[in-house]
């Protein structure tokens, strides 16, 4: 069977070679540390979104949820005067709750997750703005670094580690860890088998005793958990959060997962692939300014990668279903 991430691997190597040949900054260790940064926060989300897509669902609220969790951390810490870790805990509980509600609604109603999470997306977008204005009278939460507990939180979420003379953000290490963990779960555990089965054909999965509903709900909660992690990282790193944080990113996560080989119809894909998709995104986003090109080319490039990936994935699906009779 063709590995889902094969196309993304070839793509990542090609993109790296393209920029590395032309830009010395791009291929320097400092340059690499720079483009790994946007890849890391996107990658953490893309891995979770890939698991969800393999399980047969979309989560359009994943982007805005990054904002919701970051704002919650900020508001609970600064407006309610709580220790930052308390705020981070509250934010996690809230995220898991929203993930659960998404999953519960989708599995209960049988409606497409696309439309259910579009609803939660819009609701959260409104809440993010409304509540931020209500509490701070502005559209920004600031002063997160003045709260007790900040030093420890900064160490966990926003420190830098020196690797080969370059300062690498710790999010890059978290990203690698989460990718490895997700790959292990998908390929080496019972739950992973259930994810593929639920996304492949949930009626067939249920017939042989797979708890398809529970699997879907856990996947929605995992995506929400990833959004919490990235949201907290942003809040701690930037020490202030805009009320519109994360909006629009949900499609970028899906783009990364699809470039990584996830089928839109579910049942096929990989966590490593999604991470490679995020890597391509990071390399392109910084590679284009390194070459002194106009930044507008970035989206053209991303769109072209997406189209190529979808065409490639179509061939995979055809191959796997070639001999139906």
């Amino acid at each position: 069977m063709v590995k889902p991430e094969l196309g993304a691997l070839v793509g990542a190597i090609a993109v790296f070679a393209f920029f590395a040949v032309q830009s010395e900054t791009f291929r320097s260790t400092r340059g690499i540390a720079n483009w790994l940064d946007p890849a890391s926060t996107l990658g953490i989300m893309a891995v979770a979104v890939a698991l969800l897509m393999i399980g047969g669902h979309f989560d359009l609220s994943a982007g805005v949820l990054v904002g919701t969790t970051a704002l919650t951390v900020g508001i609970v810490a600064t407006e309610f005067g709580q220790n930052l870790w308390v705020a981070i805990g509250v934010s996690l509980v809230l995220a898991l709750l929203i993930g659960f509600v998404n999953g519960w609604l989708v599995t209960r109603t049988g409606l497409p997750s696309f439309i259910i999470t579009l609803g939660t997306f819009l609701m959260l977008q409104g809440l993010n703005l409304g509540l931020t204005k209500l509490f701070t009278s502005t559209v920004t939460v600031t002063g997160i670094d003045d709260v007790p507990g900040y030093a420890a939180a900064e160490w966990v979420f926003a420190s830098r580690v020196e690797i080969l003379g370059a300062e690498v953000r710790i999010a890059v290490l978290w990203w690698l860890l989460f990718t490895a963990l997700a790959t292990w779960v998908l390929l080496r555990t019972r739950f992973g088998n259930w994810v593929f089965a639920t996304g492949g054909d949930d009626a067939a999965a249920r017939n042989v005793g797979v708890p398809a509903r529970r699997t879907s709900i856990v996947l929605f909660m995992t995506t929400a958990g990833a959004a919490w992690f990235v949201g907290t990282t942003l809040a701690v790193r930037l020490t202030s959060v805009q009320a519109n944080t994360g909006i629009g990113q949900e499609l970028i996560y899906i783009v990364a997962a699809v470039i990584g080989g996830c089928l839109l119809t579910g049942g096929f894909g990989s966590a490593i692939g999604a991470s490679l998709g995020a890597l391509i995104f990071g390399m392109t986003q910084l590679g284009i300014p390194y070459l002194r090109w106009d930044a507008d080319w970035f989206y053209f490039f991303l769109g072209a990668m997406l189209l190529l990936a979808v065409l490639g994935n179509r061939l995979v699906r055809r191959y796997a279903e070639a001999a139906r009779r």
Partner: protein
Amino acid sequence: MTRPLMTRDDAPLLELRDLGKDYGSVIALDGISATVRAGEVTCVLGDNGAGKSTLIKILSGVHRADRGELLLDGAPVAFGAPREALDAGIATVYQDLAMIPLMAIWRNFFLGAEPTKGWGPFRRFDGAQARDVTRRELAAMGIDIRDPDQPVGTLSGGERQSVAIARAVYFGARVLILDEPTSALGVKQAGVVLRYVAQARDRGVGVVLITHNPHHAYPVGDRFLLLNRGRSLGEFAKEDISREELTRLMAGGAELDALAHELERPGN
């Protein structure tokens, strides 16, 4: 091949006594009696709307019967959920819903009952064992697969049904219910599946083969239950009925004669 010796006085594996089921005011099934013995194939034949699906749903625990009795090893049972039927050793293989096309054969084979090793957070799916068992079990059924890692979608329809049958047998099915296993298949592929039905039978499984094709049922069946619009036209042992009679009854007997008459060329 030796068939397990069964004395006819043994309590049958599964016995249906006057089963009936209503959907609201519609009588879907009424007065259905049949027996399923270990190492035998009981065929359930009927046209569309004859009540075959309702019967499967009662046997596999999806629905409860409203009337009559279901006996397993001579003792009355009523299944409240598919899981209960499965735990009692009654496995159902559905026509289109048996396998996940994009998943590897060995992943499909153990889906929902994955063997694990390790403990606590390190408990994991034992893939090596799963691959081994899959290869061995399929070989024991005479199913030759090239590579257990290939996706099920690359198998032919007949092979897919066969793998599903092998899976049910491996997981200890004593009664195997096959829902129209040959209906979507060509002649050759249907032959492949019927061969594995016979294999399962020879391993001592009681098979319930549901079909609307008497030509598939007759060679492999030991007894035949004929359904028409929710009623039984009778249960026949193979020695009591010929293929022609089966076909005629199946097609509605007199109705078919009337149709033949109607279709005759004018002037003949």
